[in-house]
C-alpha cells in the first residue's frame, strides 16, 4: 500500500467514516492553529544528511489511514505492529481508544502545507500519545512504529 493506494485508502476512510455515522470532518482534522514546522536539510556531526520532508497534507492522510487501521483493523496496522515487542503490541490492542486519540492530537498539529521529516513526525506523535495518556514505555515505540509506517505509505 503506497502513495497511489494511500489516496484510495484515504477515500475509503472518508466513506467508512460516513457509513458508520462519523462526521466526515473527523476523517481529516481541521487545520491547526499552530505554526508550520519545516524540516531543513542539515549535515550532522556524523556526516549523515536529513532527508527532505513530506507534505503535511499527505502526512495527515497517512495518519488517518493508520488511525482507522488501529480502530478497525487493516494492512497499515500490520506494518505498525511488526515494529512492536509483544508487550507493546498487547498494550496497543487494549488501548486503541487512547492511541487513536493520540494520533488525532498529532494530526491536529500538522499543517497541510508544512514539510515534515520522519523524526519530526515521530516527535509530534509522541507528544500526542503523551497527551492522550500513553506512558513513554509504550509511547516511544508506538510513535516510532507509526512514523515509520507513514514513511512507507508515502513512498
Amino acid at each position, binding site marked *: 500500500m*503506497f*502513495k497511489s493506494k494511500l489516496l484510495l485508502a484515504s477515500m475509503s476512510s472518508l466513506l467508512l467514516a460516513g457509513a458508520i455515522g462519523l462526521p466526515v470532518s473527523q476523517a481529516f482534522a481541521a487545520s491547526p492553529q499552530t505554526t508550520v514546522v519545516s524540516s531543513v536539510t542539515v549535515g*550532522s556531526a*556524523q*556526516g*549523515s*544528511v*536529513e*532527508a527532505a520532508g513530506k507534505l503535511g497534507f499527505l502526512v495527515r492522510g497517512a495518519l488517518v489511514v493508520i488511525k482507522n487501521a488501529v480502530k478497525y483493523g487493516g494492512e497499515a496496522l500490520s*506494518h505498525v505492529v*511488526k*515494529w*512492536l*515487542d*509483544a508487550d*507493546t503490541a498487547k498494550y496497543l490492542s487494549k488501548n486503541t481508544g487512547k492511541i487513536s486519540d493520540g494520533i488525532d492530537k498529532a494530526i491536529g498539529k500538522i499543517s497541510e502545507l508544512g514539510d515534515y*521529516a*520522519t*523524526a519530526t513526525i*515521530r516527535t509530534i506523535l509522541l507528544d500526542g500519545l503523551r497527551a492522550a495518556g500513553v506512558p513513554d514505555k509504550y509511547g516511544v515505540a508506538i510513535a*516510532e512504529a507509526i*512514523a*515509520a*509506517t507513514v*514513511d*512507507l505509505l508515502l*513512498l
Partner: protein
Amino acid sequence: MDTKIKQLEDMIAQQNKVILTLQNKIELLEDKAVRLAICKISNGNYPYYDFILSYHITPEQQFQIKRLFMVLSEKLAGNALPVSFKTSERYSTDFIYETSTFTFSDVKKSILTILLNTDEDLPLTLIKAMRDQGMQVELCNYLISLAEHEI
C-alpha cells in the same frame, strides 16, 4: 538611523550570546548523555535501544533502516514494492527489485552505507538486537539464517 543600526547590532550581539550559551548547554548535555549510555545498567528488554545508544545512531539513520526493513519485509511476503524506493535512498536498492530474493551481503552493504560504518560485523549485531527486542522478528530471523549460510 544610526541609533536604529546600533540597536540592531546590540540585538544581534545579544542573540549571539544566547546562541553560544545554548551551544555550550547542548555540548554538556551530549557529553552527559554519552556517559550515561555507557555507565547505565542495560535493561535486557531493550537490546535495540542499547545498540542505538552504543553506536550513536541518529534518528534519520534509524528511519532509513526502518524503511529498508519494511520494504524487505514486503519483498519477503511477495507483496508489491514501492517504485519510489528505487531512487529515494543514498544506497543502491536495485537488489530488492530483482526477481531473485535478496542476499545477506546486499542487506549488509546497505546497512553499512546507512550507518556510515565499515565494521562488517555491525549489521548482524543490529539485526540480532532488533530481533531480540521483538521488532520485525520474521525478517530478522530470515536475515540471520541467510548470514549463517553465507559464512
